[in-house]
């Protein structure tokens, strides 16, 4: 029995990770307490000034609000639609494999490109979204999707849902495969209908897949960036401003210290939301 596997095998990975991930994270904490910017020649420690400034900026409140609405809506929509799709796809369909390929395809496309494609779909006069609504006699629902402050965020949310729905579905499909058929059959013999079987057997046993989907969805959507930059650039006004677009703006204005402070706040939010959610979801998982 070998006891001493050589520790130096850990070094290459650890070296890269320590230098290029841990170091910027730690220096980031320091920079977030400085006035570091393009104009001043020296970096000066300014205590919590950046954080005080953030508190007083109305835009960070908007960014906070929008990021949370986005994350919440995306998580709910993605998980519920993904689950429904997975339940349908779990049936014995002829076209199952090709359908799965199609549903998952958007997930492998560059987010930036998806943004540009949806910009085209949402075009107020020529976009297929408004055309379809008109064609269905729902013309009153058509909007200038990306410039109307009331629906711009919704348009971004729907784009993100389109991108990730296949991924969520695939995770649920994998989870469904692990549910023992005999449990469902015995429920069936006991006279449980589809809804009861779902409510009392399938749903509780799908808990691990729920954990993964909800957690990945929350974490991913709190970090949303490319899709917003392309679709609205944070506008109209700052109605779709999110954390990362705000970071980019502060960065391009040369306010590096401040940009890092916003980044730190995002880091705290992701950890602060992610860890409790993980804990809570884990608790309701059923061990088979």
């Amino acid at each position, binding site marked *: 029995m070998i006891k001493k*596997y050589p*520790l130096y095998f850990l070094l290459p990975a650890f070296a890269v990770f320590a*230098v290029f991930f841990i170091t910027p994270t730690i220096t980031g904490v320091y920079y977030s307490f400085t006035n570091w910017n393009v104009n001043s020649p020296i970096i000066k420690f300014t205590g919590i000034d950046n954080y005080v400034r953030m508190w007083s900026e109305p835009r960070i409140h908007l960014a906070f609000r929008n990021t949370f609405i986005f994350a919440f809506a995306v998580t709910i929509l993605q998980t519920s639609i993904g689950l429904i799709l997975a339940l349908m796809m779990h049936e014995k369909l002829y076209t199952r494999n090709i359908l799965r390929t199609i549903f998952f395809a958007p997930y*492998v496309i560059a*987010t930036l490109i998806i943004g540009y494609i949806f910009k*085209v779909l949402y075009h107020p006069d020529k976009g297929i979204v408004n055309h379809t609504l008109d064609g269905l006699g729902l013309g009153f629902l058509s909007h200038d999707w990306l410039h109307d402050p009331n629906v711009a965020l919704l348009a971004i949310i729907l784009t993100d849902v389109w991108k990730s729905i296949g991924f969520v579905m695939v995770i649920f499909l994998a989870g469904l495969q692990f549910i023992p058929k005999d449990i469902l059959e015995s429920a069936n013999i006991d006279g449980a209908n589809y809804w009861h079987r779902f409510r009392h057997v399938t749903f509780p046993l799908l808990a691990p897949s729920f954990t993964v989907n909800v957690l990945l969805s929350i974490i991913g959507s709190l970090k949303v960036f490319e899709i917003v930059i392309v679709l609205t650039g944070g506008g109209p006004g700052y109605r779709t401003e999110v954390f990362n677009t705000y970071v980019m703006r502060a960065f391009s204005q040369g306010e590096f210290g401040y940009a890092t402070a916003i980044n730190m706040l995002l880091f705290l939010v992701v950890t602060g939301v992610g860890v409790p959610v993980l804990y809570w979801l884990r608790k309701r998982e059923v061990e088979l």
Partner: protein
Amino acid sequence: MKNRIQLTLVELICILAAFIVMIPFLIILLNSFKDIREAALFGLSLPSEWVFTNYSRVFERADIVRGFKNSFLISGFTVFLIIICASTSAFIIQRRNSILTQRIFIMYIIGLIMPTAIVPTIQLMVDLNINGTYAAVIFYYVAVMLPFAIFLLVGFMKSIPRELDEAAIIDGCNYPRMFFQIIFPLLMPVLITVTIVVMINVWNDFTGPFYLITDTKKWTVVLLIYNFMSQYETDWGLVFAFMTIVISPILIIYILLQRYIIHGLTAGSVKG
């Protein structure tokens, strides 16, 4: 039979949903074959006249060909480094399973959730004197994607019997040789997954090159699209052709190797 009808109904709903998911793809594909006027209508109809010049015009541009080279170069090197670093690390983490290695594993798991601090990363590259080089972007990607690769590899490593290591060591093999000649080849299935998933992520990424590459000659294809859009937003046929060319390699890889991609992305996520 009631069941048969229900099943057909479910199938029809799924096909309809799949069609809706495909519409954006169809729009760029169809419009990439239309002339400048027709493409600007963003329609879902077949081109009234098939135009192929959009594609030849894209390939005439030197910067786009170079962009492809850059994307290949950056994603290729990233994959190579990740495979070496992650597999060696995962091997020791799984085999030793001591408090130290468990802590290291948890550190990588935390790295999986944490957002990167991009502005300090740029400063770090400046301090290391590699800002704006390929190396800067490559190391940034390796650091960002390493946790995912290690996570996947540790899970897979359990299925490779320890007896193999022991037999090799008893036969007088040293550790590096034992790992690279005996264990490494057995990791192939999961290494394929890591390769594809990392490749796709690096190829598609915008944030990394956007912040870390200033020299236009080193731009990746995705960054080129970003720049292209502001210049040619009126020539939609050309834009759609360019987009089609950028997504095609990824889509083809995905369709051919989807088993590995889907398996990799969902591995470890659902308990068996």
